[in-house]
Structure formats: structure tokens, C-alpha cells
């Protein structure tokens, strides 16, 4: 079953790329498709309908054989096909769309305008819809050219380099306009058994798991994995705030926006909030929905400039070279390179014991036994079950952060919600 699914991903990705390379197609057809692609992005037109509408004309325009694979006949799409979701939505979509439109506030209508803009901007790459590889994918994954699986954003965090300065947290909070105590990045300072009073550090982002429990349990599909690059995101327009994702996450990275965010909507740029599919997934969450680290989705979509694709705010702020972000599918990417170099620097003695591995570097993924397949790997020693959190060298208050969000919330509760949180 899984092999079939993967081949389907591959097919769609490759064919999209082929389509993008074929730039000299009929201009009229192009213009029409561009217009309808915008409608697809704005959810006015289903992907299946989009395929159906242009299937024949594309057959004329391009190599017939290629297109046969590229554009699945909607009537023949099998149940395992990624596009089957559209068929379901087509069947129920009328009601769904009507329902979602009900009670839409001003912000949402502004956002739907934004969606169309975003779609137009991304047309050249992702106009064909959600299954296509997009901006980030071409920049980084193409360079590796190793596997053709597309981008899978992830991190290598070298705990041996971290000194607990909290600069990553500060940078993250500023870039994403987080409310006090809502820390997307969180740095644990801890002491462990058998290590005396030596303080260890563990910076914790969202692990952007490949098999993320939060995505599984979300009742409304607001929490989802972005197909193009594996980011685990929350659609703030759909989330009902049931907090099931938070309850299911073994890492405790989710939080609920209990009151009005500290930074109001008017001060947050749409560039940071709307991703390349036109969905509201970036920056701090509005009141009543879930928030967590997005791996700086705005950066990965090129909204902060091409240079910042493949970087995160925490990585940029880290002066200790502890955080390495990049495409885990690309052997040349920063996280893979750093790990390789670090291993090279700590060679094992294989002259006496030839069967030992080539290095002495310990790596781990947080609670891998939970089956979540995290996309963050750590260099260093995993905290034991007896590890205990201690005060770090830099106090949260000193850098303007709040460690215990409950205090902020309690104040808000006491003030009857008058205070922001």
C-alpha cells in the first residue's frame, strides 16, 4: 500500500516539474489555465474539475504520452490517489463551501483576496494546485539532485554547541509576534543523573513529525502536513480550538491562544501569515485557535526574500552554531552536512576494533519510540527519564521572555480576560 502511495507522490511531482519546464505552450491556453488556477487556489474550483477542463487541450498541446500519466482522468482516479480528496470534496463540497462562508468576518474576506494574489504570484510554480512542488522545493532540493523526493524540511540541533543563551527564543518570538509565554522555541536547561551539577541544554522546536499524531487526530483537518515540503501547519481559518493536537503531541509543543494575542492583527503583515497555497498558517495564531512552531513557513515560501529560503529565525540567531535547518532529503543541506562534518571530526578507533562504526558521535531523535518519525535530530546525549529541569545561565526574564505562561494566563483570568495573553 505504501509503495503505491509514494509512487503517486513521485508521479505528480515529476509531472508538475515537466509541465513547468514546458514553457512554450499555447499562450491562450496558458492564460485561461492561469485564471482557473487562481480559482483553484481560492477554492472556487476543484482540482479535479481543473484537470478535467484542460485535459483534452493539454493532450493536444503537449506530448500525449507524458500527459496521460500527468493528468489522471478524474473518473479513473483510484481510492489511494491523492486527488481522491477532491472527489470527496466535490461531492460534499457544495455544502462545505457554503458552510465555511457563513459567518466569515472581514479578516477572512481580506484574506481571500490575499489568496488570489498569492496564487497569481506562485502561478508559475504551483498554479496547478496543492500537489505541486513549490518555491522552496526548487531552490534547495534541486541542488542536491540526489533522490528527487522533494523537500523535507528538518533540523539537526547540536546540543554540544548550545550554551543556553536563549537568543533563538528571542528571535523566534520577535519574528512571529508571539504572545508572552507562548514559546515556539523552548530551551530546556537540565541536570541529569551521573553528570554532577553540569547543566545541559535542549532547544525544542516543533518536531514536524512525518507521522505526526496531531495531524492524525485533528477533527477538522486544520492541522495538516504540507505535501510540498512536509511542514506541519495549522490552518487558522479552520481550527476550532479543541486542543486535541496539543493533547496528542508527545513533545508538548502546541499551545492555545487563550485570549487576544499581544500583537494585534493589524500589525502583522499578510506576507507572514498566508503561505504559497493561500492558506493562513503563518505568524502567531489569532484568539481561540492553536499555535506552534511553523519552521518559519514564511521564509520557506520566499516571502522574506529568496536568501532566507532554507533558514529559520532561531538558526539565524544562534551564535553557537547549534541549530542547522535545511532539506533533510538533500545530502548537501546544512543539517546533513553539519552532522557529517561533526562525525568526521570525532573518528572512532577502528584499528583495534574494525567493526565499530566510524565515529563516536551520539545522535537521537526525541522519543523516537513514540513512532512519530520526528524531523529534528539532535547531536549529544538524550536526557534520561531522571533528567530534571533547572535554572539556566540566562533567565527568561532577563531577555524579555516568560517561562511560565500559566502566570500570564492566570493574571488574564483574574482580570476577567481584560489582559492580553
Amino acid at each position: 500500500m505504501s509503495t503505491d502511495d509514494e509512487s503517486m507522490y513521485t508521479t505528480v511531482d515529476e509531472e508538475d516539474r515537466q509541465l513547468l519546464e514546458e514553457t512554450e505552450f499555447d499562450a491562450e491556453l496558458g492564460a485561461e489555465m492561469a485564471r482557473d488556477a487562481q480559482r483553484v487556489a481560492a477554492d472556487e474550483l476543484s482540482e479535479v474539475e481543473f484537470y478535467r477542463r484542460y485535459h483534452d487541450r493539454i493532450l493536444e498541446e503537449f506530448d500525449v504520452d507524458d500527459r496521460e500519466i500527468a493528468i489522471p482522468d478524474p473518473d479513473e482516479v483510484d481510492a489511494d490517489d491523492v486527488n481522491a480528496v477532491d472527489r470527496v470534496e466535490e461531492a460534499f463540497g457544495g455544502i462545505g463551501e457554503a458552510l465555511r462562508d457563513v459567518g466569515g468576518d472581514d479578516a477572512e474576506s481580506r484574506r481571500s483576496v490575499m489568496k488570489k494574489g498569492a496564487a497569481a504570484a506562485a502561478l508559475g510554480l504551483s498554479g496547478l494546485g496543492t500537489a505541486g512542488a513549490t518555491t522552496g522545493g526548487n531552490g534547495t532540493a534541486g541542488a542536491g539532485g540526489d533522490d528527487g523526493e522533494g523537500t523535507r524540511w528538518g533540523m539537526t540541533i547540536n546540543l554540544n554547541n548550545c550554551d543556553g543563551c536563549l537568543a533563538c527564543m528571542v528571535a523566534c518570538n520577535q519574528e512571529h509576534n508571539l504572545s508572552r509565554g507562548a514559546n515556539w522555541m523552548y530551551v530546556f536547561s537540565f541536570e541529569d543523573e551521573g553528570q554532577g551539577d553540569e547543566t545541559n541544554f535542549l532547544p525544542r522546536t516543533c518536531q514536524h513529525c512525518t507521522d505526526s499524531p496531531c495531524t492524525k487526530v485533528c477533527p477538522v483537518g486544520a492541522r495538516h502536513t504540507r505535501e510540498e515540503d512536509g511542514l506541519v501547519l495549522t490552518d487558522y481559518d479552520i481550527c476550532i480550538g479543541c486542543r486535541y493536537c496539543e493533547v496528542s503531541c508527545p513533545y508538548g509543543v502546541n499551545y492555545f491562544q487563550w485570549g487576544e494575542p499581544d500583537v494585534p492583527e493589524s500589525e502583522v503583515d499578510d506576507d507572514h501569515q498566508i503561505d504559497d497555497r493561500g492558506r493562513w498558517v503563518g505568524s502567531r495564531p489569532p484568539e481561540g485557535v492553536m499555535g506552534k512552531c511553523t519552521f518559519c513557513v514564511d521564509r520557506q515560501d520566499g516571502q522574506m526574500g529568496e536568501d532566507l529560503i532554507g533558514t529559520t529565525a532561531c538558526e539565524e540567531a544562534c551564535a553557537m552554531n547549534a541549530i542547522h535547518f535545511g532539506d533533510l532529503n538533500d545530502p548537501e543541506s546544512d543539517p546533513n552536512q553539519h552532522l557529517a562534518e561533526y562525525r568526521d571530526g570525532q573518528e572512532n578507533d577502528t584499528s583495534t576494533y574494525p567493526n565499530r562504526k566510524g565515529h563516536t558521535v551520539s545522535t537521537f531523535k526525541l522519543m523516537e519510540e513514540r513512532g512519530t518519525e520526528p524531523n529534528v535530530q539532535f547531536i549529544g546525549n538524550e536526557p534520561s527519564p531522571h533528567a530534571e529541569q533547572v535554572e539556566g545561565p540566562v533567565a527568561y526574564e532577563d531577555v524579555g521572555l516568560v517561562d511560565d505562561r500559566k502566570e500570564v494566563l492566570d493574571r488574564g483570568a483574574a482580570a476577567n480576560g481584560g489582559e492580553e495573553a
Partner: protein
Amino acid sequence: MSVDVTGVDRDTLVRPIKTFSNRYVAALAVALGLIGVWLFFYSQQLRNGLIVTNLADWGSGGGVPWGLYIGAFIWWVGIAHGGIILSAAVRLLGMDTYQPVARLAELLTIAALTCAGIFILIHVGRPDRLVTSVLPAWPTRVQWSPLMWDVTVITAYFVLTATYLALTIRYDVNRLRDRLPNRLEPLYAALTVGYTETEDEVVERMVWWIAFAIIIMAPLLLHGGVIPWLFSLLPSMAGWHGGVQGPSFLSIALTSAVSGIIIIAAAFRHAYGWEELIPRAVFQGLAKWLGFFSLIFLWLQLQQVITGIFAAPTTLQHATEVKISTPLYWVAIGLVVLAMLYAFATALRPDLFDIRALVGISVGVLIGTLTEKVLFVVEGLQHAHFALYDGVPGQYVPSPVEISAVLGTVGIVVLFFLVVSKVIPVVELHAIEEHEEVDA
């Protein structure tokens, strides 16, 4: 322990509809008062957001994201099971003793499930989106989300129970029509649309099948299935894991359910002088069921404690140790132990039996089961597998806003019974008249 109440006349049956007392007005005022208090607090929550509760975030935030609201949700669904136990006992197993309280139990199911739904509505951060997000997502998300299974099965449970009531009521309304108030004529006409006496036999068979469907679906697959799975399927919290959660949840549900029926039945018996209609033997029987379910409840708690402390994995051991060192847990257990001892004692020495004492015991059981449920949710969240967060443990004490919701939903159930008992007979005609004796 067969009980014959066939001597009771039809006027007794419709007494709640025919009478109107000051006590009724007082009960109405209390119910509306409770609902009013809750609505006052709830409007604050809507205005300011869920920040007015004492909920917070597990993890670095320090606190619990699920609390009394979710505990009370599970509790109400548990109470709702009373309807199906009684109806199943009467219809599937032929235990006619409980026929006089069967419809009261079914009505309790409807009311309790409504309250459970209200807790979901007030628990979410964006209640305005509940329908608009859930319905469009249903076809795809029911494939995966246990919460969506939950929504699906509770909807099915509610609809099946309401259909059961709607079908069985036709017989009674048609025959008691001359004793029912005229101003509600359009309602009765709608309820009995297309009624002919030839349908009685058919409908009797149909409701047998509904009872059959619900007895498999509701206790085993809802409260012993989908609801415990909300917790036990997750990879995050040690105290929630394990196959024992299904049976354990079910035992708590059944214990609460019998308590709920005892209280409602005793209230109607007292208010309308129904000593003949709901005889003492019904309560003695219910007391035995309460004792039996309490025993199962306690046995399953023992299972969890012993497997959690003997040589359990670190995180489960920790969660269990915390659980058994929480005084409130022992209060909950104690209340259920008390119920079990009382039930068994009165079975051995019937002269010790007293309906008022049984009602008191039942109220205690309901407090105990609510406490156990809230502790299960909250303590589960405070002791995750990922133990590093213990550096910032958050305490959780339900806020007045949250507590008011429990009172408000109790008010809703009281109001529901006050209103419904003025409209339809809350005891089936079958209870006092053998099927074949009835003629229009």
C-alpha cells in the same frame, strides 16, 4: 422479584400533565436560576475568550488544556447510558420490573447527551466554527480523528434514542389523547402521524431492533470504545494508555447511569405520589445493579493501580503513584465503595433499605464519578511520557466559569424533565396495562 403495577389507572399516569403546583414553580425557578448563572459566566467566556477559565497549556506553559469541561462531557455521556440499560433490560431481557422507569431513563439519555454536546460546544475556542468546520471535514476526517468518531457515534446514539422514544410514544399518545391538553393538539397530531393500531406489532419489533442496536453500540462501542480511545490511542500521556481504559470507562458510565435513574425516578415518585406506579421493589432492584456496577468499577480501578505500580515503565509508574497519592481520588473511590457496601447490605437485610438513603448514595456516586473523570483527564495531562516539563508543573483548579457550566447543565436536565413531563406521559402505558388489554 416480579412487580405488578397493572392496577394503577390512567389518571395516575397523566398526573404530571394534569397538575400544577407551587413546588413545580419552585423547581422551575431553581432550574432556570442554575441555567442563568451559567449563561452569565458563559457570556463572559465568549466575550473574553477561554482565558477566563483556569485551563492552560501542558508543556512549557505549565497547566492542562483539557479539564472540567472534558471530564463533565464524559460524565454526562456516562449518565446517558441509563436509558439504554433500562430499555434493554425491559425489552431485550424481559425484565418488566423496570418498565415503569424505562421512559424516564430514555428521557435522561436525551437530556444527558444534550448536556454532553453543550460541553463540547463550550470547550472549543471557536464555537462559531463548530458546525462549519466539522461538517465539511467529516467525510475525510472520520477516517482518522478519534474526536470525529466520537462526534459520529454520539450523534448516532442521540438519534437512535430519540427515534426509539418517538416510535414508542405514538402508542401512548393515541390512547391517552383524551387526557392530554388540547392546546398541544398540533404536536400530538404530528407525533401520531399516520397512526393505525395495526402498526403496534410492527413498531414493537422495530423498537426491539433499536434497543438491540443501541445496546451494542452505546455501551460497548461508545463509552467502552470511542470515548476511552480519545485518550488511550494517544502516544503522549502515560496514565491514559492501555486496553483497560475501555472496560474501565464503561464501568464508570454504568455506575453513573444507574445513579442518575435512581435520582430521577425517586424525584417523580416523590413529587407525584407515585408510590404505586414506581414501587419500592424497582428501587431495590436498581440498588442491586448499582452495587454490582460499583463492584466492577472498583475492580477495574484495582487493575489499573496494581499494573501501574508493581513494575511498570517509569512514566506509567510515576503517573500511577501520583494518582494514588491524590486525596481526591480516594474520595471518589470511597463514595463508590460506600454505594457498593450499602447495596450489598440492603440486599442481605432488606429492612435497612430506604429510598432516601439510596438517593443520597446515588448523588455521592455521581460526585465520585465526576471527580474520577476530571482527575483522569487532568492528572493524565500532568504526567506525560516527556518528563522534562516537570520543571514547570501547572496546577489546575476549575474556575467559577467552568463550575457554573456543571450547574447549568444540571439545570438543563431538570428543566427538560419539568417541561417534558407536562407534554407527554413519562411512564409508558404498557407499565400499567398489559398489551392485549388495551383498546381505544
